[in-house]
């Protein structure tokens, strides 16, 4: 090891600057990644408290085939940024169910503390509209005790 003079006097042959010629390539790579993965949010999220469940699973379905039904704590229902009266839910969901080729998945985003009577009414409306694939939106609950 040529460590004479403590190694301070040694002339280094490696460039001390970060090569910038590939920076544009890196930028383009990231750009393409984000262009491909971006999904523009077409509706605003409602402020709800998410219930959590350990059996939460990911929904593998095209974004177009998922309809969000927001149910707030006071029983208000929001679909596509519109306040929908309870008795009109079936009329709103029904056409979308037919349009999707009967593949529509309803993501029911209900507040954790909403009384169940409202959840039941929404389910009755969804049954009437024909949309039978329902997901109770939850956050994944991470349990402290892990089964081994």
């Amino acid at each position, binding site marked *: 090891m040529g460590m004479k003079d403590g190694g301070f006097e040694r002339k280094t042959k490696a460039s001390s600057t970060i090569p910038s010629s590939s*920076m*544009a390539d890196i*930028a*383009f790579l*990231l*750009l393409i990644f*984000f*262009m491909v*993965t*971006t*999904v*523009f*949010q077409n509706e605003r999220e409602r402020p709800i408290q998410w*219930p*959590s*469940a*350990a*059996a*939460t*699973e*990911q*929904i593998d*379905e095209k*974004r177009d085939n*998922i309809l969000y039904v927001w*149910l707030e704590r006071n029983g208000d229902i929001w679909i596509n940024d519109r306040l929908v009266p309870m008795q009109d839910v079936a009329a709103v969901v029904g056409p979308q169910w037919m349009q999707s080729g009967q593949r529509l998945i309803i*993501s*029911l985003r*209900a*507040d*954790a*503390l*909403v*009384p*169940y*009577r409202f*959840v*039941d009414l929404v*389910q009755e409306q*969804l*049954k*009437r509209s*024909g*949309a*039978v*694939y*329902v*997901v*109770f*939106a*939850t*956050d*994944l*609950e991470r349990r402290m005790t892990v089964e081994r």
Partner: protein
Amino acid sequence: MAIMNKKSKVSDEIPSASMADIAFLLLIFFLVTTVFPRDSGLRVVLPEEAEEVEVSQRNVLHLQVQPSGVVVVRYGDSEDEQQMTPSQIESVWRSEVAQNPNLIAAVKTHPDAAHEHMISVLDALQLAGAERISLQLLEET
């Protein structure tokens, strides 16, 4: 024609020096606007409307979710009831379904019970592998 013979002094190449800047601009735009979708939850399939199925009481496990979050468990036609927390249901279901593979979980939730109590019961049932689950509203007596 004089115009045709004129030597153009304008470069016919697209300037590439600013390409990286344009790329970065777009990159930052997409970085800021990207929202990764979080579509997750508990799947259920609702019954078709007016689809009433007669089920023998022997094959039903009644789970009544009370407003307090306590679950009253009653097996089929028997009279004795057990109170338990949602976390206990998973093991109860496993032991009951081992004796009767045709068992159906009837989750009856009180109208005033919070949605999260029903979710925690549904969660326990799905963790235990239950597939035949019926969600109902508990009739007030």
